[in-house]
């Protein structure tokens, strides 16, 4: 009796596994469509997700796959041979590094949006922070910003703080985030007292954070995009870039708060 029960379980689990295995193979065989892999700066997440859907709608049979992270990390992945077709960075420096390493089809490089840098605080913050100067006050214990090594927004913030002569003094308070969205999350959760993010990021979480000040003294923030030299889908990549720079793409980006390049 007991043995029969065990057998029954065995049969059921084998059937289940084979079903799942077939599902996996089946679905990969059904994907005879073209895939485009786009590595994009984390700050582009919401805008690009919508943009990708509209691009897919305009190009039947095409699937856009996004890889969002800090621009510096994305560049390293491409350098190590990630099969990326299009790369959109949040700063010129990362794109320049990619160009030096001959990772780009250089003639395809174009700036497609601009952005601003803001100092944000949690919505319910009781600290009266009016500008970057206030950050040196002792009641402010933690400030989130991107890691300047790999995250463009951290580099812009460092520039602002250095120009204001605050960089060295504030260093012990800084909490480095892996990308701009992590810095945004730290502020939203109230784990830090303030943080530096792009204007568009602050807008995404406006129910949890408020803008305390617009940070000034950094280079103009312009996002470049380019087709990657190793791509096997040059035409499709170019079509995506045209869509991005065209009126439809630009209007989506504008809706998420990005400025003209």
């Amino acid at each position: 009796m007991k043995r029969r029960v065990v057998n029954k379980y065995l049969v059921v689990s084998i059937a289940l596994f084979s079903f799942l295995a077939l599902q996996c193979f089946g679905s990969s065989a059904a994907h005879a469509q073209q895939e485009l892999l786009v590595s994009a700066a984390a700050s582009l997440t919401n805008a690009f997700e919508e943009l990708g859907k509209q691009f897919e709608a305009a190009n039947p049979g095409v699937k856009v796959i996004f890889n969002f992270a800090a621009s510096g990390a994305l560049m390293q992945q491409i350098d190590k041979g990630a099969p990326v077709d299009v790369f959109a960075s949040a700063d010129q420096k990362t794109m320049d590094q990619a160009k030096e390493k001959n990772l780009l089809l250089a003639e395809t490089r174009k700036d497609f949006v601009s952005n601003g840098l803001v100092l944000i605080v949690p919505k319910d913050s009781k600290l009266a922070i009016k500008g970057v100067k206030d950050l040196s006050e002792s009641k402010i214990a933690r400030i989130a910003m991107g890691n300047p090594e790999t995250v463009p927004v951290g580099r812009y913030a460092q520039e602002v703080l250095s120009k204001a002569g605050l960089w060295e003094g504030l260093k012990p308070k800084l909490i480095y985030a892996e990308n701009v969205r992590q810095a945004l999350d730290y502020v939203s959760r109230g784990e830090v007292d303030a943080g530096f993010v792009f204007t568009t990021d602050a807008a995404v979480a406006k129910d949890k954070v408020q803008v305390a000040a617009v940070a000034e003294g950094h280079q103009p923030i312009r996002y470049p995009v380019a087709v990657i030299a190793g791509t096997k889908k040059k035409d499709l990549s170019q079509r995506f870039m045209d869509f991005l720079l065209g009126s439809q793409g630009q209007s989506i980006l504008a809706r998420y708060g990005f400025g003209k390049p």
Partner: protein
Amino acid sequence: MIETGIALTPLLLTLKVALLATLFSFIAGVILSRIISQFTFPGKEWLDAVLTLPLVLPPTVLGYYLIVVLGRKGWLGQFLWENFGISLMFTWQGAVVASAVVSFPLVFKSAKASFEAVDHNLEKAARTLGSSELGVFLRVSLPLAWRGILAGAMLAFARAMGEFGATLMIAGNLPGKTQTLSLAVYDAVQAGKDSLATTLVLITSIVCVLVLVASGKILKSNYIKEVDR
């Protein structure tokens, strides 16, 4: 090899965090496994399952739980922050908590198995000879279960040394403050510092091999002593 200096800080931090985390998971693991193996009470299987959960849950899930509980707005974190001004977020103590939670089931599981393998007649004999429950635990059960518990603690230490996900979420990745070896490797690779990454990876590998060899020796020498008796 100028980079050995840069690698020293994360190495020392990793050892400190892993040692403390192992200490906490060791104490909690031994006590809780003893309670689970000694007593019967309703919901025992459920408690056992919950205590084993960190072993199977993804570290990111644990990290999220820890943020929800220990964050400045978390139910325990808020209490600590408002009353004592303590916040575990972005501190090396937070990393200890993350590593302890992740490595706890390894001590718990092996200690529980070891306690259950102890000959209960010996424990009963001790009781008839007038030994208190604590005496039975300290003089009979613990010495007999010692090897299994130690093996579990060694595994817990190794797991704590390699902890990444939950640590990144609660302690962040702050160079010199909370950046352990595994985080430093991640950072170096992200920033394209391949030679630093190589140094860190080699150091980590050497330390882990040393730990494994040392633990093997400790367990083996104990075994021989027991056989000799």
